Protein backbone atom coordinates (compact mmCIF):
# COMPACT_ATOMS: atom_id res chain seq x y z
CA UNK A 1 0.00 0.00 0.00
CA UNK A 2 2.95 2.33 0.46
CA UNK A 3 3.44 1.74 -3.24
CA UNK A 4 0.20 3.66 -3.80
CA UNK A 5 1.38 6.42 -1.53
CA UNK A 6 4.65 6.64 -3.37
CA UNK A 7 3.13 6.64 -6.81
CA UNK A 8 0.47 9.13 -5.77
CA UNK A 9 2.94 11.43 -4.08
CA UNK A 10 5.19 11.23 -7.10
CA UNK A 11 2.42 12.19 -9.50
CA UNK A 12 1.20 14.98 -7.24
CA UNK A 13 4.69 16.32 -6.75
CA UNK A 14 5.22 16.30 -10.48
CA UNK A 15 2.13 18.41 -11.05
CA UNK A 16 3.05 20.71 -8.20
CA UNK A 17 6.55 21.06 -9.56
CA UNK A 18 5.18 21.87 -12.99
CA UNK A 19 2.99 24.56 -11.47
CA UNK A 20 5.83 26.04 -9.48
CA UNK A 21 8.29 25.99 -12.37
CA UNK A 22 5.73 27.80 -14.51
CA UNK A 23 6.19 30.87 -12.34
CA UNK A 24 9.75 31.28 -13.50
CA UNK A 25 9.90 29.39 -16.77
CA UNK A 26 7.65 28.03 -19.48
CA UNK A 27 8.83 26.93 -22.92
CA UNK A 28 6.80 29.71 -24.52
CA UNK A 29 4.72 32.60 -23.35
CA UNK A 30 1.45 30.84 -22.55
CA UNK A 31 -0.68 33.68 -23.92
CA UNK A 32 1.34 34.35 -27.06
CA UNK A 33 -0.81 33.55 -30.08
CA UNK A 34 0.51 32.46 -33.42
CA UNK A 35 -2.59 31.81 -35.46
CA UNK A 36 -0.83 30.58 -38.62
CA UNK A 37 0.82 27.87 -36.51
CA UNK A 38 -2.40 26.64 -34.93
CA UNK A 39 -3.41 23.06 -34.19
CA UNK A 40 0.04 21.64 -34.66
CA UNK A 41 0.53 18.13 -33.33
CA UNK A 42 3.29 17.53 -30.77
CA UNK A 43 6.77 17.83 -32.20
CA UNK A 44 10.25 18.82 -31.09
CA UNK A 45 9.40 22.50 -31.09
CA UNK A 46 6.08 22.26 -29.26
CA UNK A 47 6.29 19.19 -27.04
CA UNK A 48 2.54 18.94 -26.67
CA UNK A 49 1.56 20.74 -29.85
CA UNK A 50 -0.27 24.03 -30.22
CA UNK A 51 -3.89 24.96 -29.67
CA UNK A 52 -6.40 26.63 -31.97
CA UNK A 53 -4.72 30.01 -31.48
CA UNK A 54 -1.26 28.56 -32.01
CA UNK A 55 -0.39 28.82 -28.33
CA UNK A 56 2.06 26.32 -26.86
CA UNK A 57 0.05 23.58 -25.13
CA UNK A 58 2.84 22.55 -22.78
CA UNK A 59 3.17 26.06 -21.43
CA UNK A 60 -0.59 26.26 -21.05
CA UNK A 61 -0.71 22.94 -19.21
CA UNK A 62 1.99 24.15 -16.85
CA UNK A 63 0.24 27.40 -16.07
CA UNK A 64 -3.11 25.59 -16.03
CA UNK A 65 -1.78 23.35 -13.26
CA UNK A 66 -1.31 26.53 -11.27
CA UNK A 67 -4.94 27.49 -11.78
CA UNK A 68 -6.25 24.04 -10.89
CA UNK A 69 -4.12 23.75 -7.79
CA UNK A 70 -4.85 27.29 -6.63
CA UNK A 71 -8.61 26.98 -7.06
CA UNK A 72 -8.85 23.52 -5.51
CA UNK A 73 -6.48 24.34 -2.67
CA UNK A 74 -8.21 27.53 -1.64
CA UNK A 75 -11.62 25.87 -1.97
CA UNK A 76 -10.52 23.02 0.29
CA UNK A 77 -8.98 25.60 2.60
CA UNK A 78 -12.31 27.40 2.88
CA UNK A 79 -14.04 24.12 3.52
CA UNK A 80 -11.61 23.21 6.27
CA UNK A 81 -11.40 26.62 7.84
CA UNK A 82 -15.16 26.88 8.22
CA UNK A 83 -16.15 23.23 8.30
CA UNK A 84 -13.76 21.97 10.94
CA UNK A 85 -14.68 24.52 13.63
CA UNK A 86 -18.36 23.91 12.89
CA UNK A 87 -17.84 20.17 13.23
CA UNK A 88 -15.88 20.64 16.45
CA UNK A 89 -18.55 22.93 17.86
CA UNK A 90 -21.34 20.54 16.92
CA UNK A 91 -19.53 17.64 18.56
CA UNK A 92 -18.70 19.64 21.67
CA UNK A 93 -22.35 20.53 22.09
CA UNK A 94 -23.74 17.23 20.93
CA UNK A 95 -27.52 17.17 20.97
CA UNK A 96 -27.85 20.89 21.63
CA UNK A 97 -29.64 23.34 19.36
CA UNK A 98 -26.26 24.43 18.03
CA UNK A 99 -25.48 20.87 16.93
CA UNK A 100 -28.93 20.58 15.44
CA UNK A 101 -28.62 23.83 13.49
CA UNK A 102 -25.17 22.96 12.19
CA UNK A 103 -26.14 19.47 11.14
CA UNK A 104 -29.41 20.50 9.51
CA UNK A 105 -27.53 23.28 7.74
CA UNK A 106 -25.11 20.67 6.53
CA UNK A 107 -27.89 18.48 5.22
CA UNK A 108 -29.38 21.47 3.50
CA UNK A 109 -26.18 22.35 1.69
CA UNK A 110 -25.79 18.72 0.72
CA UNK A 111 -29.32 18.75 -0.62
CA UNK A 112 -28.58 21.52 -3.09
CA UNK A 113 -27.52 20.34 -6.52
CA UNK A 114 -23.93 21.54 -6.54
CA UNK A 115 -23.46 22.22 -10.24
CA UNK A 116 -26.73 24.15 -10.47
CA UNK A 117 -25.71 26.24 -7.49
CA UNK A 118 -22.28 26.83 -9.00
CA UNK A 119 -23.93 28.05 -12.17
CA UNK A 120 -26.23 30.26 -10.13
CA UNK A 121 -23.36 31.70 -8.13
CA UNK A 122 -21.57 32.60 -11.29
CA UNK A 123 -24.78 34.03 -12.70
CA UNK A 124 -24.98 36.27 -9.64
CA UNK A 125 -21.33 37.10 -9.14
CA UNK A 126 -20.03 36.57 -12.65
CA UNK A 127 -17.70 33.89 -13.92
CA UNK A 128 -14.17 33.76 -12.59
CA UNK A 129 -11.68 31.81 -10.54
CA UNK A 130 -12.68 33.45 -7.28
CA UNK A 131 -16.31 32.58 -7.76
CA UNK A 132 -15.40 29.05 -8.76
CA UNK A 133 -13.52 28.85 -5.49
CA UNK A 134 -16.57 30.05 -3.61
CA UNK A 135 -18.83 27.60 -5.40
CA UNK A 136 -16.55 24.65 -4.71
CA UNK A 137 -15.66 25.86 -1.23
CA UNK A 138 -19.27 26.09 -0.07
CA UNK A 139 -19.79 22.43 -0.78
CA UNK A 140 -16.60 21.53 1.02
CA UNK A 141 -17.80 23.05 4.28
CA UNK A 142 -20.36 20.38 5.15
CA UNK A 143 -17.98 17.62 4.10
CA UNK A 144 -15.42 18.74 6.64
CA UNK A 145 -18.02 19.66 9.25
CA UNK A 146 -19.55 16.21 9.06
CA UNK A 147 -16.35 14.24 9.08
CA UNK A 148 -14.93 16.34 11.91
CA UNK A 149 -18.06 15.96 13.96
CA UNK A 150 -18.17 12.21 13.42
CA UNK A 151 -14.57 11.71 14.45
CA UNK A 152 -14.83 14.21 17.29
CA UNK A 153 -17.92 12.52 18.73
CA UNK A 154 -16.11 9.23 19.17
CA UNK A 155 -13.17 11.08 20.68
CA UNK A 156 -15.41 12.83 23.16
CA UNK A 157 -16.27 9.39 24.54
CA UNK A 158 -12.63 8.63 25.20
CA UNK A 159 -11.28 8.69 28.72
CA UNK A 160 -8.60 11.24 28.03
CA UNK A 161 -11.25 13.76 27.12
CA UNK A 162 -13.05 12.95 30.35
CA UNK A 163 -9.77 13.49 32.12
CA UNK A 164 -9.43 16.88 30.48
CA UNK A 165 -12.97 17.74 31.50
CA UNK A 166 -12.22 16.69 35.05
CA UNK A 167 -9.25 19.01 34.77
CA UNK A 168 -11.83 21.74 34.22
CA UNK A 169 -11.02 22.58 30.64
CA UNK A 170 -13.68 24.25 28.55
CA UNK A 171 -15.26 22.64 25.48
CA UNK A 172 -13.49 24.99 23.12
CA UNK A 173 -10.14 24.40 24.73
CA UNK A 174 -10.58 20.62 24.70
CA UNK A 175 -11.67 20.79 21.08
CA UNK A 176 -8.56 22.57 19.97
CA UNK A 177 -6.10 20.99 22.37
CA UNK A 178 -7.21 17.38 22.25
CA UNK A 179 -9.81 16.77 19.53
CA UNK A 180 -8.30 18.71 16.66
CA UNK A 181 -4.84 17.13 16.75
CA UNK A 182 -6.42 13.70 16.87
CA UNK A 183 -8.70 14.27 13.86
CA UNK A 184 -5.87 15.86 11.92
CA UNK A 185 -4.88 12.63 10.18
CA UNK A 186 -8.40 12.12 9.03
CA UNK A 187 -8.59 15.70 7.85
CA UNK A 188 -5.36 15.38 5.93
CA UNK A 189 -6.67 12.30 4.16
CA UNK A 190 -10.04 13.87 3.47
CA UNK A 191 -8.33 17.08 2.45
CA UNK A 192 -6.34 15.20 -0.15
CA UNK A 193 -9.47 13.55 -1.51
CA UNK A 194 -11.38 16.84 -1.51
CA UNK A 195 -8.43 18.47 -3.21
CA UNK A 196 -8.64 15.98 -6.04
CA UNK A 197 -12.41 16.43 -6.21
CA UNK A 198 -11.78 20.16 -6.28
CA UNK A 199 -9.52 19.75 -9.29
CA UNK A 200 -12.25 17.75 -11.01
CA UNK A 201 -14.88 20.30 -10.04
CA UNK A 202 -12.75 23.16 -11.30
CA UNK A 203 -12.31 21.32 -14.57
CA UNK A 204 -16.07 20.76 -14.80
CA UNK A 205 -16.86 24.39 -14.02
CA UNK A 206 -14.33 25.75 -16.51
CA UNK A 207 -15.63 23.27 -19.02
CA UNK A 208 -19.02 24.95 -18.85
CA UNK A 209 -17.25 28.29 -18.90
CA UNK A 210 -17.59 29.23 -15.24
CA UNK A 211 -14.05 28.92 -13.98
CA UNK A 212 -10.97 31.04 -14.47
CA UNK A 213 -11.44 33.46 -17.33
CA UNK A 214 -9.16 33.75 -20.35
CA UNK A 215 -6.38 34.40 -20.93
CA UNK A 216 -5.60 32.51 -17.68
CA UNK A 217 -5.25 28.92 -18.89
CA UNK A 218 -7.39 26.30 -17.22
CA UNK A 219 -7.47 22.62 -18.04
CA UNK A 220 -11.24 22.45 -18.08
CA UNK A 221 -11.55 25.36 -20.50
CA UNK A 222 -8.83 23.89 -22.66
CA UNK A 223 -11.00 20.79 -22.90
CA UNK A 224 -14.05 22.87 -23.71
CA UNK A 225 -12.15 24.76 -26.39
CA UNK A 226 -10.83 21.49 -27.74
CA UNK A 227 -14.03 19.56 -27.92
CA UNK A 228 -15.11 20.54 -31.40
CA UNK A 229 -11.61 19.91 -32.67
CA UNK A 230 -11.19 16.40 -31.32
CA UNK A 231 -11.44 14.92 -34.76
CA UNK A 232 -9.03 17.34 -36.40
CA UNK A 233 -6.52 17.75 -33.59
CA UNK A 234 -6.97 14.97 -31.01
CA UNK A 235 -4.07 16.19 -28.89
CA UNK A 236 -6.10 19.24 -27.95
CA UNK A 237 -8.54 17.08 -25.97
CA UNK A 238 -6.11 14.38 -24.94
CA UNK A 239 -3.47 16.57 -23.34
CA UNK A 240 -5.61 18.44 -20.80
CA UNK A 241 -7.74 15.31 -20.25
CA UNK A 242 -4.71 13.24 -19.38
CA UNK A 243 -3.38 16.05 -17.20
CA UNK A 244 -6.61 16.06 -15.20
CA UNK A 245 -6.75 12.28 -14.93
CA UNK A 246 -3.14 11.97 -13.80
CA UNK A 247 -3.45 14.74 -11.24
CA UNK A 248 -6.66 13.41 -9.77
CA UNK A 249 -5.29 9.89 -9.86
CA UNK A 250 -2.13 11.00 -8.10
CA UNK A 251 -4.01 12.82 -5.37
CA UNK A 252 -6.44 9.97 -4.86
CA UNK A 253 -3.67 7.42 -4.64
CA UNK A 254 -1.91 9.66 -2.19
CA UNK A 255 -5.09 10.07 -0.15
CA UNK A 256 -5.66 6.33 -0.06
CA UNK A 257 -2.06 5.68 0.77
CA UNK A 258 -2.14 8.26 3.54
CA UNK A 259 -5.32 6.75 4.90
CA UNK A 260 -3.68 3.35 5.15
CA UNK A 261 -0.52 4.86 6.48
CA UNK A 262 -2.15 7.05 9.10
CA UNK A 263 -5.01 4.73 10.06
CA UNK A 264 -4.72 4.39 13.84
CA UNK A 265 -6.26 0.92 13.70
CA UNK A 266 -3.61 -0.27 11.33
CA UNK A 267 -0.99 1.42 13.42
CA UNK A 268 -2.11 -0.37 16.54
CA UNK A 269 -1.89 -3.69 14.74
CA UNK A 270 1.56 -2.79 13.53
CA UNK A 271 2.76 -1.78 16.95
Amino acid at each position, binding site marked *: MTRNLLLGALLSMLVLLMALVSFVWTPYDHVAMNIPAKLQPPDAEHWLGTDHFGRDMFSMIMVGARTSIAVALVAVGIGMLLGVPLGLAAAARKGSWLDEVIMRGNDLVF*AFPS*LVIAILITAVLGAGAVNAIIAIGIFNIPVFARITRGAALSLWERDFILAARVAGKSGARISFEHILPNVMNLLIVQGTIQFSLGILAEAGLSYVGLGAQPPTPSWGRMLADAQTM*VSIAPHLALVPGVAIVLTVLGLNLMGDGLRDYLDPRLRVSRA
Partner: protein
Amino acid sequence: MLRYSLKRLISLVLSLVVASLVIFLVIEVAPGDPASFMLGINAQPDTVAALRSELGLDVPKWQRYLDWAGGMLIGDFGTSYTYRTPVSEMIADRLWVSLPLALFALTISTLVAFPAGIYAASRRGRAGDAAVMGATQLGVAIPNFWFAMMMVLVFAINLRWFSAGGFAGWDKGILAGLHSLTLPAISLALPQAAILARVMRSSLLDILGEDFMRTARAKGLSRGQALWRHGVRNALIPVLTIIGLQFSFLLAGAIIIEQVFYLPGLGRLVFQAISSRDLIVVESVVMLLVFSVITVNFVVDLAYALVDPRLRRRS
Protein backbone atom coordinates in the same frame (compact mmCIF):
# COMPACT_ATOMS: atom_id res chain seq x y z
CA MET B 1 -38.37 6.16 16.28
CA LEU B 2 -41.59 8.16 16.27
CA ARG B 3 -40.13 11.00 18.19
CA TYR B 4 -37.25 10.82 15.80
CA SER B 5 -39.63 10.86 12.84
CA LEU B 6 -41.48 13.86 14.22
CA LYS B 7 -38.25 15.69 14.80
CA ARG B 8 -37.12 14.84 11.32
CA LEU B 9 -40.40 15.99 9.89
CA ILE B 10 -40.17 19.36 11.59
CA SER B 11 -36.59 19.85 10.53
CA LEU B 12 -37.53 18.69 7.04
CA VAL B 13 -40.22 21.35 6.76
CA LEU B 14 -37.91 23.98 8.21
CA SER B 15 -35.19 22.93 5.80
CA LEU B 16 -37.54 23.30 2.89
CA VAL B 17 -38.65 26.74 3.99
CA VAL B 18 -35.05 27.86 4.42
CA ALA B 19 -34.15 26.27 1.11
CA SER B 20 -36.97 28.05 -0.70
CA LEU B 21 -35.89 31.38 0.77
CA VAL B 22 -32.25 30.84 -0.13
CA ILE B 23 -33.13 29.75 -3.64
CA PHE B 24 -35.47 32.67 -4.18
CA LEU B 25 -33.02 35.24 -2.88
CA VAL B 26 -30.02 33.91 -4.77
CA ILE B 27 -31.91 33.69 -7.99
CA GLU B 28 -33.62 37.03 -7.66
CA VAL B 29 -30.39 38.92 -7.11
CA ALA B 30 -28.89 37.52 -10.29
CA PRO B 31 -28.52 40.39 -12.74
CA GLY B 32 -30.71 40.13 -15.81
CA ASP B 33 -34.40 40.39 -16.48
CA PRO B 34 -36.55 37.79 -18.26
CA ALA B 35 -38.60 40.39 -20.10
CA SER B 36 -35.58 42.22 -21.49
CA PHE B 37 -34.06 38.93 -22.45
CA MET B 38 -37.19 37.94 -24.34
CA LEU B 39 -37.46 41.15 -26.23
CA GLY B 40 -33.86 41.60 -27.25
CA ILE B 41 -31.93 44.70 -28.11
CA ASN B 42 -34.43 46.53 -30.28
CA ALA B 43 -37.23 46.49 -27.76
CA GLN B 44 -38.58 49.78 -26.54
CA PRO B 45 -38.76 50.47 -22.81
CA ASP B 46 -42.57 50.59 -22.80
CA THR B 47 -42.67 47.20 -24.51
CA VAL B 48 -40.43 45.73 -21.83
CA ALA B 49 -42.62 47.29 -19.16
CA ALA B 50 -45.72 45.84 -20.82
CA LEU B 51 -44.17 42.39 -20.88
CA ARG B 52 -43.03 42.71 -17.28
CA SER B 53 -46.54 43.42 -16.18
CA GLU B 54 -47.90 40.64 -18.35
CA LEU B 55 -45.47 38.25 -16.67
CA GLY B 56 -46.35 39.53 -13.24
CA LEU B 57 -42.83 40.76 -12.63
CA ASP B 58 -43.96 44.19 -11.51
CA VAL B 59 -45.31 43.09 -8.15
CA PRO B 60 -43.04 43.32 -5.08
CA LYS B 61 -40.53 40.51 -4.60
CA TRP B 62 -41.89 39.34 -1.28
CA GLN B 63 -45.31 38.92 -2.81
CA ARG B 64 -43.89 36.93 -5.68
CA TYR B 65 -42.12 34.74 -3.14
CA LEU B 66 -45.32 34.13 -1.25
CA ASP B 67 -47.23 33.42 -4.46
CA TRP B 68 -44.59 31.01 -5.61
CA ALA B 69 -44.13 29.26 -2.28
CA GLY B 70 -47.85 29.16 -1.67
CA GLY B 71 -48.48 27.79 -5.12
CA MET B 72 -45.98 25.02 -4.61
CA LEU B 73 -47.86 23.80 -1.58
CA ILE B 74 -50.77 22.96 -3.84
CA GLY B 75 -48.56 21.67 -6.63
CA ASP B 76 -48.75 24.82 -8.73
CA PHE B 77 -45.30 25.95 -9.72
CA GLY B 78 -46.48 28.92 -11.73
CA THR B 79 -45.99 29.70 -15.39
CA SER B 80 -42.66 29.90 -17.16
CA TYR B 81 -41.69 33.44 -18.19
CA THR B 82 -40.16 32.41 -21.47
CA TYR B 83 -42.05 29.27 -22.45
CA ARG B 84 -45.36 30.52 -21.07
CA THR B 85 -46.40 27.04 -20.14
CA PRO B 86 -47.05 25.76 -16.63
CA VAL B 87 -43.74 24.98 -14.95
CA SER B 88 -45.13 21.79 -13.49
CA GLU B 89 -45.87 20.48 -16.97
CA MET B 90 -42.39 21.33 -18.19
CA ILE B 91 -40.83 19.62 -15.19
CA ALA B 92 -43.02 16.57 -15.68
CA ASP B 93 -41.93 16.32 -19.32
CA ARG B 94 -38.27 16.61 -18.43
CA LEU B 95 -38.61 14.14 -15.59
CA TRP B 96 -39.64 11.52 -18.11
CA VAL B 97 -36.10 11.77 -19.41
CA SER B 98 -34.13 12.64 -16.30
CA LEU B 99 -35.71 10.09 -14.00
CA PRO B 100 -35.23 7.10 -16.32
CA LEU B 101 -31.73 8.32 -17.09
CA ALA B 102 -30.86 8.55 -13.40
CA LEU B 103 -32.37 5.15 -12.70
CA PHE B 104 -30.66 3.62 -15.70
CA ALA B 105 -27.30 5.03 -14.66
CA LEU B 106 -27.86 3.93 -11.08
CA THR B 107 -28.73 0.42 -12.24
CA ILE B 108 -25.61 0.22 -14.34
CA SER B 109 -23.39 1.56 -11.59
CA THR B 110 -24.93 -0.80 -9.03
CA LEU B 111 -24.67 -3.80 -11.33
CA VAL B 112 -21.03 -3.05 -11.99
CA ALA B 113 -20.05 -1.85 -8.54
CA PHE B 114 -21.52 -4.58 -6.37
CA PRO B 115 -19.76 -7.53 -7.97
CA ALA B 116 -16.58 -5.50 -8.40
CA GLY B 117 -16.57 -4.35 -4.78
CA ILE B 118 -17.41 -7.77 -3.41
CA TYR B 119 -14.83 -9.43 -5.62
CA ALA B 120 -12.15 -6.95 -4.60
CA ALA B 121 -12.96 -7.37 -0.90
CA SER B 122 -12.86 -11.14 -1.18
CA ARG B 123 -9.46 -11.00 -2.83
CA ARG B 124 -8.04 -8.32 -0.57
CA GLY B 125 -4.41 -7.57 -1.23
CA ARG B 126 -4.20 -9.87 -4.21
CA ALA B 127 -3.95 -9.18 -7.91
CA GLY B 128 -7.73 -9.17 -8.47
CA ASP B 129 -8.20 -6.57 -5.75
CA ALA B 130 -5.40 -4.42 -7.13
CA ALA B 131 -6.90 -4.60 -10.62
CA VAL B 132 -10.38 -3.58 -9.46
CA MET B 133 -9.00 -0.83 -7.25
CA GLY B 134 -6.83 0.47 -10.06
CA ALA B 135 -9.83 0.55 -12.36
CA THR B 136 -11.89 2.43 -9.79
CA GLN B 137 -9.11 4.94 -9.25
CA LEU B 138 -9.18 5.61 -12.94
CA GLY B 139 -12.98 5.73 -12.97
CA VAL B 140 -12.98 8.38 -10.28
CA ALA B 141 -10.27 10.41 -11.96
CA ILE B 142 -11.76 10.58 -15.45
CA PRO B 143 -14.00 13.63 -15.94
CA ASN B 144 -17.28 12.20 -17.15
CA PHE B 145 -17.87 14.86 -19.79
CA TRP B 146 -14.56 13.92 -21.34
CA PHE B 147 -15.46 10.26 -21.20
CA ALA B 148 -18.81 11.09 -22.84
CA MET B 149 -17.05 12.93 -25.66
CA MET B 150 -14.82 9.95 -26.30
CA MET B 151 -17.74 7.52 -26.22
CA VAL B 152 -19.66 9.57 -28.77
CA LEU B 153 -16.61 9.57 -30.96
CA VAL B 154 -16.27 5.81 -30.81
CA PHE B 155 -19.77 4.45 -30.55
CA ALA B 156 -21.85 7.04 -32.35
CA ILE B 157 -19.57 8.43 -35.02
CA ASN B 158 -17.22 5.57 -35.81
CA LEU B 159 -19.15 2.43 -34.95
CA ARG B 160 -22.59 3.99 -35.27
CA TRP B 161 -24.12 1.63 -32.74
CA PHE B 162 -25.92 4.45 -31.02
CA SER B 163 -27.21 7.80 -32.09
CA ALA B 164 -25.01 10.69 -31.08
CA GLY B 165 -27.65 12.09 -28.82
CA GLY B 166 -31.21 13.25 -28.59
CA PHE B 167 -34.07 11.33 -27.12
CA ALA B 168 -36.26 9.07 -29.22
CA GLY B 169 -39.21 9.44 -26.89
CA TRP B 170 -41.04 6.78 -24.94
CA ASP B 171 -43.90 6.79 -27.43
CA LYS B 172 -41.51 5.15 -29.86
CA GLY B 173 -41.19 2.29 -27.40
CA ILE B 174 -39.21 1.42 -24.34
CA LEU B 175 -36.34 -0.09 -26.27
CA ALA B 176 -35.91 2.94 -28.47
CA GLY B 177 -35.99 5.15 -25.40
CA LEU B 178 -33.47 3.07 -23.51
CA HIS B 179 -31.32 2.85 -26.61
CA SER B 180 -31.00 6.61 -26.77
CA LEU B 181 -30.23 6.79 -23.04
CA THR B 182 -27.56 4.09 -23.08
CA LEU B 183 -24.46 6.17 -23.79
CA PRO B 184 -25.47 9.00 -21.45
CA ALA B 185 -26.27 6.49 -18.71
CA ILE B 186 -22.92 4.78 -19.11
CA SER B 187 -20.99 8.02 -18.98
CA LEU B 188 -22.92 9.09 -15.90
CA ALA B 189 -22.47 5.69 -14.29
CA LEU B 190 -18.71 5.45 -14.70
CA PRO B 191 -17.55 7.61 -11.80
CA GLN B 192 -20.53 6.57 -9.69
CA ALA B 193 -19.73 2.90 -10.20
CA ALA B 194 -16.13 3.53 -9.24
CA ILE B 195 -17.12 5.31 -6.03
CA LEU B 196 -19.74 2.71 -5.19
CA ALA B 197 -17.34 -0.18 -5.77
CA ARG B 198 -14.84 1.44 -3.43
CA VAL B 199 -17.43 2.02 -0.74
CA MET B 200 -18.72 -1.53 -1.14
CA ARG B 201 -15.23 -2.91 -0.78
CA SER B 202 -14.19 -0.86 2.22
CA SER B 203 -17.53 -1.44 3.90
CA LEU B 204 -17.17 -5.18 3.36
CA LEU B 205 -13.63 -5.13 4.65
CA ASP B 206 -14.86 -3.40 7.81
CA ILE B 207 -17.47 -6.09 8.20
CA LEU B 208 -14.94 -8.84 7.56
CA GLY B 209 -13.14 -7.71 10.69
CA GLU B 210 -16.28 -8.05 12.80
CA ASP B 211 -16.57 -10.75 15.44
CA PHE B 212 -19.67 -12.27 13.91
CA MET B 213 -17.80 -13.04 10.73
CA ARG B 214 -15.45 -15.17 12.79
CA THR B 215 -18.48 -16.77 14.44
CA ALA B 216 -19.82 -17.61 11.01
CA ARG B 217 -16.54 -19.19 10.02
CA ALA B 218 -16.53 -21.17 13.24
CA LYS B 219 -19.91 -22.59 12.23
CA GLY B 220 -18.34 -24.07 9.14
CA LEU B 221 -19.17 -21.42 6.56
CA SER B 222 -16.50 -21.02 3.96
CA ARG B 223 -14.95 -17.61 3.39
CA GLY B 224 -17.24 -17.02 0.43
CA GLN B 225 -20.38 -18.19 2.21
CA ALA B 226 -19.62 -15.99 5.19
CA LEU B 227 -19.04 -13.03 2.90
CA TRP B 228 -22.32 -13.51 1.09
CA ARG B 229 -24.62 -14.48 3.93
CA HIS B 230 -23.28 -12.27 6.68
CA GLY B 231 -21.06 -9.70 5.06
CA VAL B 232 -22.95 -8.21 2.15
CA ARG B 233 -26.13 -7.33 3.96
CA ASN B 234 -24.31 -5.64 6.78
CA ALA B 235 -22.07 -3.84 4.33
CA LEU B 236 -25.11 -2.46 2.53
CA ILE B 237 -25.79 0.23 5.11
CA PRO B 238 -23.08 2.69 4.08
CA VAL B 239 -23.55 1.64 0.48
CA LEU B 240 -27.21 2.64 0.63
CA THR B 241 -26.27 6.10 1.83
CA ILE B 242 -24.02 6.54 -1.16
CA ILE B 243 -26.67 5.23 -3.54
CA GLY B 244 -29.14 7.72 -2.11
CA LEU B 245 -26.71 10.59 -2.55
CA GLN B 246 -25.86 9.40 -6.04
CA PHE B 247 -29.44 9.27 -7.13
CA SER B 248 -29.99 12.90 -6.28
CA PHE B 249 -26.73 13.78 -7.91
CA LEU B 250 -27.69 11.93 -11.06
CA LEU B 251 -31.02 13.68 -11.21
CA ALA B 252 -29.47 17.12 -11.15
CA GLY B 253 -25.84 16.56 -11.98
CA ALA B 254 -26.43 15.42 -15.52
CA ILE B 255 -26.38 18.97 -16.89
CA ILE B 256 -23.15 18.56 -18.79
CA ILE B 257 -23.97 15.07 -19.98
CA GLU B 258 -27.40 16.22 -21.12
CA GLN B 259 -25.65 18.99 -23.00
CA VAL B 260 -23.22 16.60 -24.69
CA PHE B 261 -26.02 14.24 -25.70
CA TYR B 262 -28.57 17.04 -26.23
CA LEU B 263 -31.10 15.29 -24.04
CA PRO B 264 -34.25 17.16 -23.01
CA GLY B 265 -33.68 16.59 -19.31
CA LEU B 266 -34.06 18.61 -16.11
CA GLY B 267 -30.42 19.66 -16.04
CA ARG B 268 -30.59 21.24 -19.44
CA LEU B 269 -33.88 22.89 -18.58
CA VAL B 270 -32.26 24.56 -15.58
CA PHE B 271 -29.25 25.56 -17.60
CA GLN B 272 -31.40 27.16 -20.28
CA ALA B 273 -33.68 28.74 -17.75
CA ILE B 274 -30.76 30.34 -15.94
CA SER B 275 -29.40 31.83 -19.13
CA SER B 276 -32.79 33.17 -20.16
CA ARG B 277 -33.48 34.32 -16.59
CA ASP B 278 -36.62 32.22 -16.49
CA LEU B 279 -36.42 32.66 -12.75
CA ILE B 280 -39.52 30.79 -11.79
CA VAL B 281 -38.40 27.70 -13.65
CA VAL B 282 -34.97 27.81 -12.03
CA GLU B 283 -36.49 28.32 -8.61
CA SER B 284 -38.97 25.53 -9.03
CA VAL B 285 -36.55 22.99 -10.43
CA VAL B 286 -33.92 23.70 -7.78
CA MET B 287 -36.61 23.47 -5.12
CA LEU B 288 -37.79 20.20 -6.57
CA LEU B 289 -34.26 18.83 -6.57
CA VAL B 290 -33.68 19.90 -2.99
CA PHE B 291 -36.98 18.34 -2.05
CA SER B 292 -36.08 15.13 -3.84
CA VAL B 293 -32.72 14.90 -2.11
CA ILE B 294 -34.34 15.35 1.26
CA THR B 295 -37.01 12.81 0.37
CA VAL B 296 -34.50 10.33 -0.99
CA ASN B 297 -32.50 10.64 2.20
CA PHE B 298 -35.66 9.94 4.12
CA VAL B 299 -36.35 6.89 1.96
CA VAL B 300 -32.79 5.73 2.45
CA ASP B 301 -33.34 6.00 6.20
CA LEU B 302 -36.38 3.81 5.81
CA ALA B 303 -34.36 1.41 3.71
CA TYR B 304 -31.86 1.14 6.56
CA ALA B 305 -34.63 -0.20 8.70
CA LEU B 306 -35.28 -2.91 6.13
CA VAL B 307 -31.64 -3.90 6.16
CA ASP B 308 -30.95 -3.35 9.82
CA PRO B 309 -33.49 -4.72 12.32
CA ARG B 310 -31.88 -2.70 15.10
CA LEU B 311 -33.60 0.34 13.64
CA ARG B 312 -37.02 -1.27 13.59
CA ARG B 313 -38.98 -0.84 16.72
CA ARG B 314 -41.10 -3.52 18.19
CA SER B 315 -44.55 -2.33 19.08
